């Protein structure tokens, strides 16, 4: 019987895909792992996923700033 599931299709590069898989191992939001660059997830997780990704990827960015500057 044909099944249709609602959700969100995520298209991304393989690195992001690896991060998504890694997150899924703790939070289980992947509905179907389609291929290297596509994954189908539950729609409620989209925003959370994006913010997690941003957080993780931000960790690898060095921002030039003056540590003495109180505005930082």
């Amino acid at each position, binding site marked *: 019987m044909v099944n249709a599931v609602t959700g969100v299709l995520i298209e991304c*590069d*393989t*690195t992001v*895909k*690896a*991060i998504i*898989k*890694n997150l899924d191992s703790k939070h289980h939001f992947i509905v179907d792992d389609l291929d*290297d660059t596509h994954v189908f997830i539950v729609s409620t997780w989209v925003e959370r996923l994006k913010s997690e990704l941003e957080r993780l*990827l931000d*960790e*690898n*960015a*060095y*921002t*030039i*700033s003056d*540590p*003495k*500057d*109180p*505005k*930082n």
Partner: protein
Amino acid sequence: MTSSGPSAASQKKRKLSDAESSDEDSDVQLDLNLQNKLYVPRHANLDPSSLNSTHHGIGIEGQKDFVSHIFGNEDYTWLPLKNDHKSRPLWISPENGHIILEGFSPIAEQAQDFLVAISEPVSRPAHIHEYKLTPYSLYAAVSVGLETEDIIEVLNRLSKVPVPESITKFIRQCTLSYGKVKLVLKHNRYYVESAHPETLQMLLKDSVIGAGRVYRDENDQITTEQNSALTVSSKPTGKDLTIPGIQKGKDTKPDGLNEKLTAEEQKKEDEKLFGAVVAIDKEDEDDDDEAEQVHAFEIQADHVENIKKRCNEIDYPMLEEYDFRNDTVNPNLEIDLKPITVIRPYQEKSLSKMFGNGRARSGIIVLPCGAGKTLVGITAACTIKKSCLVLCTSSVSVMQWKQQFLQWSNIKENQIAVFTSDQKERFSGDAGIVISTYSMVANKRKRSYDAQKMMDFLESREWGFLLLDEVHVVPANMFRTVVTTIAAHAKLGLTATLVREDEKIDDLNFLIGPKLYEANWMDLASKGHIANVQCAEVWCPMTPEFYAEYLLENTRKRTLLYVMNPRKFQACQYLIRYHEERGDKIIVFSDNVHALVEYAKKLQKPYIYGGTGQQERMRILQNFQYNPIVNTIFLSKVGDTSIDLPEATCLIQISSHYGSRRQEAQRLGRILRAKRRNDEGFNAFFYSLVSKDTQEMYYSTKRQQFLIDQGYAFKVITNLEGIDSDPTLVFKTKNEQLDLLKSVLLTNEADLKDEDLHEMDDVGRITDRKVAAKNRLPGLVRRTMTTSKSLAGGDNMAYMEYSRSSGGQFAKNPRGNPGASKEHHSLFKKHLKRK
């Protein structure tokens, strides 16, 4: 959070024994007395903003507009602009002593000369330069003869806005006591000398200083009869001193550049404006018009250390000057530059700062790698002509120094001795040169019999000149030990990179002396003194399998995963091949020895690391230099400094030490002296290979900051053209990649430990166990605080960097602090894309 990090790491490391280590090489003992002797003056940490209270609120309210808040306390629109501000090249921040200079101003060149003398260069790219006034920079300024009011006056002439009151105060306060008093060795007696007799009288009232004073009667005999008269003599000058290789009386004015840039009238005006600066520059040379006088009192030799310490405590640090021409006790050394040896203009300038008044000032000269620091050191030795001790960071560079002495000067071979773990020589005759490493001299424990005898010799005599190479690579403790155990009249530190947030600079300023000169990298490159370099960072995506593991693993394994990333392997192979085909000679750097060996073996290239024997090292280096088949070598951290390979024209970094800006600069330095640099259109290449989406990206950017501020630009390369079409590409199939991954994952902790120890070079062997102890000393609490916030996460002091303020990057970013785990690598890469 980090306080346990470095010390834990060093504890661990200390237990390891380096393959190359011998009895002599172990920890440095730093005794507590010594700590106390080396006290940094109070004002050394003065901050201009603390003097700026008066400005807040003055007439500001009326002028605040809706963008003022963006600038916090750095909205200086209340500073009036001078009417003729357009012809003046700089602005000064009242809050922090920052100076912003228009590099395109017709008088920029003179302004730069002046600013380098009084402030720290912050950034010097193409158009606008930034400098910063600091207590140290002002200390350096007065030590080369600039006077407080002249500094303020010239600054004011150059500034578009009036010199803010806070800055005037700051300059006065920093120069009030600094640089006013000199310790001079003259006719073998120690004198405290000053142009300000009232200062000397004030010092004499201090019980510690007064107690060391020597009184003499009319017959020059020591007497107990006290009289308060100071001896008076005329101010020393450098008029009759000849520095070898420098033609006296040569006009040092900048060549026709200015005329080209500016109209004649403008030029005249500039010269008027600049009269003061020029006068200051020349002050050292000709002050015959008014024979100024200096005053002095004599002190006993065995009180010197105490008095020095006392002067630091009361904020009157003594500058050390050596009147070598009047030293009749220490025998002269027959040494001169060979007639063919030529000194470049910037080398001359740096030497003139050292010998400006006819004596030898102690201090530090900063020149980029490849700009001929060695020759500056040798020329200084030829000027002083006394026994000389040279200390460097590795036994390889010991040999290179010796060879350079023989090449540039007429010193006889039997007058140069080498002291390393392999060789313990002495020179013949009364005077000579000894070249050794810091670790040989600083190590006090468990010396072999020979070594101990040698040390006794070094410590027993007076040295006219102590030459300290690569001063910023060496742990501060080692310095303290060396500087206090070797009796030397003049000290010269050489380095390429004063990475300014490194607090060791504080020590260096007072252990060795102020910075005498700092060259502009871009300037030297544009004049052909050092090579032009194209820098690039190559982004290598992690393969999905490596990245999946990367996300799971601990920090140490992560490092290995991003270094061993198959795409990085391939990029390395691609670049080696590309540049070998162009005829380049390539050095590949890897801090991580495991990776170094794997890469080198896979790509079938020779490699050198800490565990490579001396003979083998020399063999590989010679092959690289002279054998046309050997065009690529792999080097571990041992190659960071001092290995002189002018054949190299291309550098590839596959693994580096975290965010170390200094290491980045040092590595770049390996190609700056490229032999081919003056070939038409020649470029050297500097690549950092970085695994994308890993911590390496963070470190890579951070590492580049110093060079970026020197004006270098790192191009990001996201795609190497045609890399996948190479049939010989390594790890091309998924299976090969998985095998590599398996082997990386199987690498056990023990192997990683071995890497750590192999990575240590001569300097790295000196660990910093005592640093932890030092941090607990009450007398040093001030700096301890910042030290505990340090972070760059090195495993040894040599590479550790500090964040000076609590708001630093790392406080926010736990990634920057590997904490208790002590693995080391940061990789970074740069790359350059050719058109």
